[in-house]
């Protein structure tokens, strides 16, 4: 039995390649940190299948189906354009207000939908957590992954609208993927926090709409970031959504509020959210089944 005998500790349950491979699994009271990512890698198929399920389910038994992805931001933007652009006349950095708000909404919706879906996902899938073992982080990650589909569709809408207005975004549009990635980093970090907290405290389920609403108000979605006094703007940048939602406008519409210090602060706080989220999530992860 000596040959092919190697030791793998708590991190992994399944040898996905070959069943005949002999691996020893050690189950201990404490989790080994080094196996977190390998475990997720091993279950990557589950990640995709769960994400696929989420996307499929969202539009099952709807009449217009996937068209909702287009309609939702478009209708919301039209309403905002009417209220804030036409009636309240909020300045939009000289851009057509509809485009201005559509850009902001696209970025914000992406961010908030990750938060919302991933945040609720652990509690929503509690029946799985108590029945089967797999890396729990797969659940919020898969839920967030579904939002990527929405982002791609709504970006198409944005670029469609740009052509209607005969606006051609310059080289800055190349920075867009980076802003998306930073939004993902921040959103995943925040949703690891929220989803895990929600397992222990259902209060967060009720607080979620408020958290999102308040977060939206401190983010330049319907207003321009230039409305924030210059000396305050660096503090507002602690909110990653503030920086990177504005980043969308910088990249697509060429607005000029974004500065390097803002990007640095936003990036730092995104990474902080992610790292602290991962640490927190994994410090409570193993006990989910006992609590959820």
């Amino acid at each position, binding site marked *: *039995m000596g040959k092919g005998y190697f030791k793998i500790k*708590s991190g992994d*349950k*399944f*040898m*996905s390649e070959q*069943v005949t491979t*002999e*691996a*020893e*699994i*050690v*189950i*201990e*009271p*404490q*989790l080994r940190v080094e196996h977190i990512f390998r475990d997720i890698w091993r*279950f990557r*198929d*589950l990640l*995709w*299948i*769960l994400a696929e*399920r989420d996307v*499929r*389910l969202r539009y*099952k*038994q709807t009449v217009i189906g996937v068209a909702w992805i287009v309609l939702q931001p478009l209708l919301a933007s039209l309403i905002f354009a009417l209220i804030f652009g036409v009636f309240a006349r909020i300045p939009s950095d000289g851009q057509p207000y509809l485009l201005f708000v559509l850009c902001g909404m696209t970025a914000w919706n992406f961010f908030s939908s990750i938060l919302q879906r991933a945040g609720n996902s652990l509690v929503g899938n509690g*029946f*799985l*957590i*108590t*029945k*089967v*073992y*797999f890396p729990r982080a797969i659940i919020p990650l898969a839920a967030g992954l579904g939002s990527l589909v929405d982002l791609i569709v709504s970006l198409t809408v944005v670029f469609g609208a740009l052509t209607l207005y005969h606006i051609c975004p310059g080289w800055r549009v190349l920075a867009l993927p980076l802003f998306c990635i930073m939004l993902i980093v921040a959103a995943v970090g925040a949703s690891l926090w929220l989803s895990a*907290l929600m*397992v*222990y*405290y*259902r*209060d967060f389920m009720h607080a979620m709409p408020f958290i999102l609403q308040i977060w939206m108000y401190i983010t330049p979605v319907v207003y321009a970031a230039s409305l924030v006094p210059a000396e305050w703007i660096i503090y507002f940048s602690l909110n990653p959504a503030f920086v990177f939602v504005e980043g969308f406008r910088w990249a697509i519409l060429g607005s000029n509020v974004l500065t390097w210090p803002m990007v640095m602060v936003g990036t730092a706080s995104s990474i902080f959210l992610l790292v602290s989220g991962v640490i*927190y999530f994994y*410090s*409570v992860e*193993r*006990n989910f*089944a*006992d*609590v959820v």
Partner: protein
Amino acid sequence: MSETVISVKEVGKAYSMAVTRGATLHRTLTEELALMPRNLWSWLKGRGAPCETFWALKGVSFEVKRGEVVGVIGSNGSGKSTLLKILSRITPPTTGEIRLRGRVASLLEVGAGFHPELSGRENIFLNGAILGMTRQEIRRNFDAIVAFAEIAKFLEAPVKHYSSGMYMRLAFSVAAHLESEILLVDEVLAVGDAQFQKKCLGKMGEASRAGKTVLFVSHDINAVRQMCRRTILLAQGVIVKDDLSEETIKCYLG
């Protein structure tokens, strides 16, 4: 052939009463806010005030050799399910250590993760992935799964339209086709009709003949007697008897 596949050493599992008591399962925010300054971290980890602990398992040790089929019996609350949950890594042990040699398939509850709106085909992939199969592996076993479940005609229909029999057959079929060396089975046989139960037992027998190790937790003394040579009796979280099935069952009934 007599290699140890499952080794359980001094395993214990403690639940804190604050967690086990239903009403305080989810404490309110105001309650918690009062405690918060005292210890933010323990609050974040979901531990509020210090609370009594209850040991669902205590000092449990045993070994299982390759190809053995071992039954685990005991009255309600004796720790059977907790043991299986720890073995399948759903919940961590509080003390002790477990070593498992080889891949584990746990049939704690078949059909976990089935979604009513999705079709049979979609659910096979979903459920298979949840149980730890890769896409490739599911594709490889797909036809066998469908054939065993006898649902080929309804593969594309959402499972919410399935009869409960079809549903159960599909669920068990997916779980039974997980390629593993160790099989943990808990009460799956309690559901389904006589014919289905027979099929399940048959599959388990097949598994043991193929050299797989099976740990079978059940209330059904007859099924245990029929399936297992050796049986472990648990009572209040400790092993009372670990012997040939006849002896253990005599001890349990007597």
